[in-house]
């Protein structure tokens, strides 16, 4: 299956780029992620628990980054084995463009599933994958720029601007 989309993130391109390579951000962004460690250079190992239609499984897998053109684009490839539940694998081409408000992130995802996931979940898999992608980038955006929840916004303004935890972290370190 094939999906694509864009997100406008209120952060500069270098910040978004750094976030994409950060294990903690990825862990917080991947829905159902239990564990994630490793580095952008050597690849990440992840454990993710998800329910697809009637199949609930824990996937162990790897995420590798390649074709890295800092800070413009990269390719992200993932593969997870869910034991008796089957497997999922996919790749995403991610590009970052500078815009007036920050960065436009464009993604182009190809994913496939196999085994029981395909046998039992094929009717729901497209919707599931779209939901996963939406959630991932939603959470990624939140991590980078802070929650979009309007009730939290005034407080954020009061403490000197709305910032995501990653942005705060990056700025503090800087």
């Amino acid at each position: 299956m094939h999906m694509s989309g864009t997100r406008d993130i209120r952060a500069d391109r270098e910040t978004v780029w750094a976030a994409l390579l950060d294990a903690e951000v990825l862990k917080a962004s991947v829905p159902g992620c239990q564990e994630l460690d490793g580095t952008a250079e050597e690849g990440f190992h992840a454990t993710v628990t998800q329910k697809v239609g009637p199949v609930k499984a824990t996937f162990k897998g790897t995420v590798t980054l390649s074709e890295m053109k800092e800070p413009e684009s990269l390719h992200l490839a993932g593969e997870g084995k869910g034991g008796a539940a089957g497997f999922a694998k996919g790749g995403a081409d991610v590009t970052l463009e500078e815009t007036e408000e920050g960065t436009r992130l464009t993604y182009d995802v190809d994913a496939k599933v196999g085994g029981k996931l395909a046998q039992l979940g094929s009717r729901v898999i497209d919707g599931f994958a779209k939901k996963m992608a939406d959630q991932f980038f939603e959470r990624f955006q939140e991590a980078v720029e802070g929650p979009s929840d309007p009730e939290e916004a005034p407080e954020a303004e009061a403490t000197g601007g709305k910032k995501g935890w990653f942005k705060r972290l990056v700025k503090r370190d800087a």
Partner: protein
Amino acid sequence: MPKDHGIGAASKRREDVRFLTGTGNYTDDINLPRQLYVHFLRSDIAHGEIRHIDTSTAEGMPGVKRVFTGKDFEGVGGLPCGWQVTDRHGAPMQEPAHPVIAQGKVRHVGEILAAVVADSRERARDAAEAIEFDIAELPAVVDMKAALASDAPKVHEDLTSNLCYDWGFVEDNRDKVDEAIRTAAHVTTLELVNNRLVANPMEPRVAVGDYHRATDESTLYTTSQNPHVIRLLMGAFVLGIPEHKLRVVAPDVGGGFGSKIFHYAEEAFVTFAARQLGRPVKWTSTRSEAFMSDAHGRDHVTKIELALDADHNFTAIRTETHANMGAYLSTFAPSVPTWLHGTLMAGNYRTPAIYVNVKAVFTNTVPVDAYRGAGRPEATYQLERVIDKAARELGVDPVELRRKNFVTEFPYATPVAVEYDTGDYNATMDKLAEIADFAGFEARRKESEARGKLRGLGVNCYIEACGIAPSNLVGQLGARAGLYDAATVRVNATGSISVMVGAHSHGQGHETSFPQVIAEMLGIDESQVDIVHGDTSKIPFGMGTYGSRSIAVCGSAMVRATEKVIAKAKKIAAHLLEASEADIELKDGQFTVAGTDKSVAWGDVTLAAYVPHNYPLEDIEPGLEETAFYDPANFTFPAGAYACEVEVDPETGKVTIERFAAADDFGNVINPMIVDGQVHGGLAQGIGQALLENCAYDANGQLVSASYMDYAMPRADDVPFYAVDHSCQTPCTHNPLGVKGCGEAGAIGSPPSVVNAVIDALHSGGHKVAHIDMPLTPSRVWAAMQG
């Protein structure tokens, strides 16, 4: 008045007492002392190179006895194919090795990668999850035409291509057919798909292997339609166990529909593992496993051309079919699109020139083999759809076009090698017009239209070749087996009878209908006769049940054996009555000296045979038991005419079957109630194919319809109350009972009439739709209506 016993009586199915009260003895009910359980780790990718399998963690897990992989089967034979097709150029088909457990590569989702044997099912399953493997995924081939491209990935790299064979039939007809099509007044062309199906018997497959060291004897309990065939294939070709050391038992079996004919890897595995481990090993398929390991059915893509002259006589038929074999050749797979398909392309019609081309193709999918009808539904569907399309193109009545071209004189030799011995196609069409109420259709259509619905009437005929099959003929055609059958009639001392038959009953009701024949012949009560089947240690070497052959072939063997019993019993009676053997008559269980009142009862004669005090020991042996083998002289040719009436909801494309009528000619009928049931079941399966069922793969070879959430089986509200009739009877001319067989007719004859009816309904609403491929789901029908 209907008979209440013997041939023609609607005797109640005696086996239903145990089936309906939960006291059947199915393979899964068999549990042996010290039994182990196997769980098969199956490939979840369609095509890949096995780089590494590590079973060490799994082997250390609690309760695990041993983990087997392809390596353990390197010295063991592969699963044999029972039919070799010769291609158009005289070369044998390409026949790949078919390992019990994958070796080097996996070639379809569901193929066995490893087998864990443990002391419980759950522990075996848990340990299977701990097997580590590395499979390098290769591009999969799923689409048949793409599989034949020169640069397509090869399913088997040791074969020259993915083409199993390119079969032409009859090759000598080819030029004549091309010429007839070139010069025809009208040619109707239709391209269609015969959708892949999963058999889905109610009982999934089960196998229990057992081995006794002291006697060196192996026993396989399995869900099979033909235990002797399994014993022969597995013993001789896979495991090398001599037949006297191998017993195969197929106890109560909950439906097969063809899918339980074949010899499967799991059967060989449990028998092998039981010998290795010295303990019984049991496998029970889950429904998910059944979807990806039971042989699938159909899966043909066909182009058919029908040529007609100016008077609408059929002059030629030319077909080109791609038939999916799946990743390996299942036991009888090559015969299905060829000899069970091409030979039926004449249908019920006089078409002087026919040429059938079939390309059988390997793909990364589950093997495909015989499923109820096997080749004959595919032939019937394309022929009856193209005739309907021709009638529409020519603006003539589809029933009249059929009648005009019916074969009316018998025997009739078709241009596709078979000879119909008898039939009366106008009679079944007349009967159909009556029971389907053709006359009332227009009024029903108006009534539907008043409710905003489109109503259509679809009709088709069918013919099938059953009573499979003359051994010398099928031997010439490539069969690696004989197709006779056998029966032993064992008369007991007090006159009751046990009949050991080679046929296997798994829903057909043999335990009821076979005794009716013997009761008729001897004039004794049916309750005095029992059938023994399904155990190679008890029954003679028969070939089992498929191809609507049981009563026509095994029943004939039973008649021959009973005739031998009667001949001997008459000798005994003649002795007891001090009369000449030639004067003895048997009627109503009494032996009488013709023209006198001197008689002796059946029971007195049988007792004399076993207590031979007053007995002609110098002339005949004691005892009363006879065996006969029967090899049919020809196929039988059941035929009939079916009509379906549908309503289509123009808003949604939803099809509802309002009426369905079936007029069949099965020759003589032993038990009309059982025949009704067979037709009902067949119709439900045919309607399922036409409207609901579809086995689907994605482009990567993933099976995406592997549960009842995605594979739509027909339910009670999908089928109407049927009108069935089998009163048109032209008895088979070459078997002693005059029977033809009825097991597959419903599934063969029904899909075209359903599709014809939907097309008719759409045309009545102004939608000029030429064809929709099965299954006719609401979305497909709706899309077709949008043009």
